[in-house]
């Protein structure tokens, strides 16, 4: 365990001491597209090594929010800071761009579209190491690639393959390894298990849980699936129409929801004993709140 983290620090060139103890603070985030307020005054905090679920349906603003956090979009207002370093505005120059990339990485939803079809698994991870590593020697990078692939449960056979030879679950493992290669402190998982078969989804959730325990990386877990969120996050924020309607410890929010929308979301999750009448009632309760 100790040896592993040592090689990691050497290969990546980040200071492991700093990894612990940096909080991601998002305050008053706003983003509009034309007249439509996609994200409206969203705030949340991700403690170091924590796991925060961002729950919402389509149009809730969850995707826009994390795109701003990761730097694919720029907020109209508000601040995003990791360890006090503001990252809400566009980066100035290469050094700042790379420094930010080393802080927050992301795994996308669709494993079939998130890898360059022309690049083998090994090269796809090697690229990241070349961009972010201090060590340019091939041998060191090769060892690190192998280590990363091993961490996500992929072997030599997959390393030489092009993405089209891999299953959805394997591709998602590659995407996770690629994100870890930059040595991030925060990993954003954008519906990262939504497109996978149930049995594979559980494998990836298992893997993500282990990585967090071993490496202390913080997770921003974006999902529409409350059952998944319940098992992988400590805290949760519920978004609706661009605003936070409820937040708190995941177990509290899911067992004692305060906002009618959260209750509706929970009631809607299918399962044995699923009751359309109760859902209809929750919907009326929500309409009463939003109407008034």
């Amino acid at each position, binding site marked *: 365990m100790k040896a592993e983290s040592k090689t990691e620090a050497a290969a990546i060139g980040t200071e492991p001491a700093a990894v612990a103890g940096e909080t991601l603070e998002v305050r008053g985030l706003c983003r509009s597209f034309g007249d439509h307020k996609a994200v409206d005054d969203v705030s949340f905090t991700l403690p170091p090594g924590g796991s925060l679920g961002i729950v919402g349906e389509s149009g809730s603003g969850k995707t826009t929010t994390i795109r701003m956090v990761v730097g694919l979009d720029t907020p109209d207002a508000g601040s995003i800071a990791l360890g006090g370093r503001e990252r809400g505005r566009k980066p100035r120059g290469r050094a700042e761009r790379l420094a930010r990339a080393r802080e927050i990485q992301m795994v996308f939803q669709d494993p079939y579209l998130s890898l*360059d079809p022309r690049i083998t698994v090994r090269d796809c991870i090697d690229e990241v190491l070349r961009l972010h590593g201090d060590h340019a020697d091939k041998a060191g990078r090769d060892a690190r690639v192998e280590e990363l692939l091993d961490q996500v449960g992929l072997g030599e056979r997959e390393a030489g393959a092009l993405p089209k030879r891999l299953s959805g679950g394997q591709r998602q493992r590659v995407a996770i390894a690629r994100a870890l290669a930059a040595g991030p402190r925060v990993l954003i998982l954008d519906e990262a298990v939504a497109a996978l078969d149930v049995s594979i989804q559980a494998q990836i959730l298992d893997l993500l849980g282990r990585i967090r325990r071993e490496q202390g990386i913080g997770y921003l877990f974006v999902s529409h699936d409350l059952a998944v969120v319940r098992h992988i996050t400590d805290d949760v924020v519920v978004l609706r129409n661009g605003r936070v309607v409820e937040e708190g410890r995941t177990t509290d929010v899911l067992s004692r929801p305060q906002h009618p929308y959260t209750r509706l979301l929970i009631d809607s999750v299918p399962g044995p004993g699923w009751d359309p009448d109760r859902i209809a009632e929750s919907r009326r309760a929500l309409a009463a709140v939003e109407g008034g």
Partner: protein
Amino acid sequence: MTAATATAAAPTRRGATARLRGIAAQGPLFTGAVVVLVLLTLMAIFAPLIAPYDPNAIDLGNSLAGSSADHLLGTDQSGRDVLSRLIFGARTGLLGPLLVVVISTVIGIALGIVAAWRGGWVDSFLSRTMDAMFAFPAMLLAILCVAMFDAGLTAPVIAMTVAYSPYVGRYVRSVAVQEKARPYIESYRVQGWSGWVICTKHLLPNIVPSVLAQSTINFGYALMELAGLSFLGFGVQPPTADWGTMVNEGQSAIMKDAFMPGLAPCFAIIVAVVAFGIVGEGISDRVAKREK
């Protein structure tokens, strides 16, 4: 850098035999069209070796001779061997469109990708400029160019390049906009790569096949339009053998019941244009299949 060259080399190594098998698998029509294009190219390159006569050797005593063992396709009004002129005509016939397609593809790719990647006002400016260029009739432009430069291959090629570049540019822009939104491109942005690297190493190679398909079809159109200009007298000047000028000269022969001098080049143009069309469609079918 070694990793990059290895990936670049891999497809070419797999290339030759696999590619031939791929061509055959596309169906007899596609295979036939590829064979036609290869033969045309060889004909153009080795024209001096293949042609039975000097294409410009005048034999007024033997004008408008029908086909015979000596002159397979007969002779034209000046007694020149039609077959030899047809073979030499493939040189200007293919060289002109080749220049047009290569230059317009390069310019179009540059314009299209910059517009798609930068977006915003850069995109608006480039797109409107391309629209404006597009609105200008190519033939008129060509005639203007001839007036400015001189008759010959240069003027029509410049005119056609100017006319085709915005066409390619608009196509590249639309493909690149789609590609840019794909998660694998976004993940490179998240990793901290510069726009230049992402565009040249990842975005461009992934859209090149579809652009190539479009350019192949353009080749046929350019060939036809350049032949048209020659026919009108704005292109390659007599006595140089060229399919367009040959059709022009053949007109009067038809009045005298000699069809070969006019019809043979017509036939050559049709065969070439159709072959380019089939190959272009075939390539885009393959791209579409790969996308699935």
